[in-house]
């Protein structure tokens, strides 16, 4: 990626503000199969994400895929905000 990172630390996707852009750093694999399923949908380290909506469910754009997930899943996706959008 050619994007500059801010000095902001890594945080879960749930901690982003709506419309905030970030890059995925890690997908925590603490529930069986979760990381596999996310990976298959393109939710992988290095992919760009934008949080679109927090309620009633979390909706985010990952690369070109719009995904709806429950809170626990979003919390397992660790991201680093992209500078200039934080």
């Amino acid at each position, binding site marked *: 990626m050619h994007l500059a990172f801010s000095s902001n630390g890594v945080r879960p996707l749930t901690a982003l503000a709506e419309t905030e852009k970030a890059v995925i750093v890690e997908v925590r694999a603490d529930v069986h199969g979760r990381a596999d399923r996310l990976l298959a949908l393109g939710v992988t380290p290095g992919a760009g994400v934008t949080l679109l909506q927090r309620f*009633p469910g979390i909706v985010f754009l990952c690369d*070109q895929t719009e995904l*709806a*997930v429950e809170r*626990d*899943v979003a919390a397992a996706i660790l991201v680093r905000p992209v500078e200039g959008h934080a």
Partner: protein
Amino acid sequence: MSCHVAHERAAAGQRLLALRAHPLRIALVGQPNVGKSVVFGRLTGRYVTVSNYPGTTVAVTTGRSLVGNEVCDIIDTPGVNALEGAISEDERITRDVLTSRQSDLVVQVADARNVRRALMLTSQIAALGKPMLLALNMVDEALARGIVVDAPALAAELGIPVIEMVAVEGRGLPELRASLACAARPRVSAHPNASDRAAWAHDLTDRVRHVSTLSLASIQEALARATRRPATGLPMLAVVLYALYLFVGVFGAQTLVKLLEDDVFGRGINPAAVWFADRFIPIALVRDFFVGQYGVITMGITYSIAIVLPVVATFFLMFGFLEDSGYIPRLAIFCDRTFRVMGLNGKAVLPMVLGLGCDTMATMTTRILGTPKERLIAILLLALGIPCSAQLATIMGILGGISFAALATLFGVVLGQMFLVGWLAARVLKGERSEFILELPPIRWPRLGNLLTKTRLRVWWYLGEAVPLFLVGTALLFVLDRVGALVFIAAAGRPIVTGLLGLPPATAQILVMGFLRRDYGAAGLFQLAHDGQLTGVQAVVALTVMTLFVPCVANFLMMVRERGLKTGLAILSVVTPVAIFTGAGLNYVLHAFGIQF
């Protein structure tokens, strides 16, 4: 790719062909909702249902296609996000097609916007060692979002043909046919694990895909946003439901049914049939078989064509519109929390809403759910509470004519019962639910051609599926009536039907027929209500019981096919008492409070 090597290979392939014992088998594989079924339709001329949500295709369809002068078998498969790891039942079906000898060649269909995900799958297909090519579909939509994929560069990197397509318009199809001979094993080094694969796909995507900030699809994006936000999404849902009620419940179930039943059948066909029978059929028994009280024409045909068909047709049209717009999966965002209480997650909204079309088909669609427990609960709830289109017809036809409160009571009781049974099932059944992760398709304006084709085929399917059963049911009723069994059934059912449920004795036979097909039973109720033999309370109670019954023989057989005989019988033995006792409870409460409709 430069194709002279490929042409030699193709020539060799054609020599091989002469020795082949079967036609070349080409599997169409790809992520969900990338247009495999459209490509299949274009190649074979066979239509398989095309919609705008992941999971429309959950079974394999095969068709023949002529490529050059060679006959090929084309295989349409359920969409897959991955071929290994945690995969659902429909994905397993595709994996089996790919790993077995069922396929010789693979055409990977991909959404041009989503090359990165497509390549992750390409790498997994490559590992199977079958010749393949990559079809980048929907390049028009990608372009509208400012995404350009350098297909020649990608082809050079992968060593396979890469074809750009807009399959719904037939663009790129000739190129696809021409390139089949050039299919090759991709030059992709084996990736030991998923993260290596992802990193490879990511790097390659960076090299071949250019994204500009230009976006021409802003109206669709604004609509997509509006459908998923509570402040706009919930009012939109209310508008959609109201439009559904107006189009299906009022226009279909009242205006069209009245026209067909009273005018076409009541004043035209039926009197003509009776006149004809009186003149030309001398034997009374045969005459009654056709035009009597339980006559094949006066009852069987009238029920299926005049009462149920108009509603089924209007419903399928509206429903197809919703399917193709991409709206239905967005409801999952609102349902997720409620479904979690029932041991499911938001994804289950797809089979549930599809059940309103046909519970039997929806039972198959439960394959997209993550765990066996979720599938079982979804199948149980479909059987218990989701009225299919034909049955919605009669519900709307009868209760719509009584009052809105009657309609609200029925749906309130049925939804409450589903919630209760789902809550119990989530606690009693072993296993776990999966986490809610759902891809949302883009909002699109439905294509009229697809909408009409889909509706036409579904109406034909209804005619082929339901009408014969209606006729068999009518014939059965006729026989039962003649041998005096109807009186016996009415007598045997009296403690339940008139005692517990407070219904007229004639309802017993209708409930029995409801086992054959719920809508057939409901059509019987429609007739009864029409003749003024049901009070408002009786209509609500009878329809509630009928709605909670297992939908039809076909649905029961599908449950057995998907989950085994034991489970099928278990579901039946849960659903039937729940239906009867709910009806009894409702009857008691309505009378205790003196409620009339």
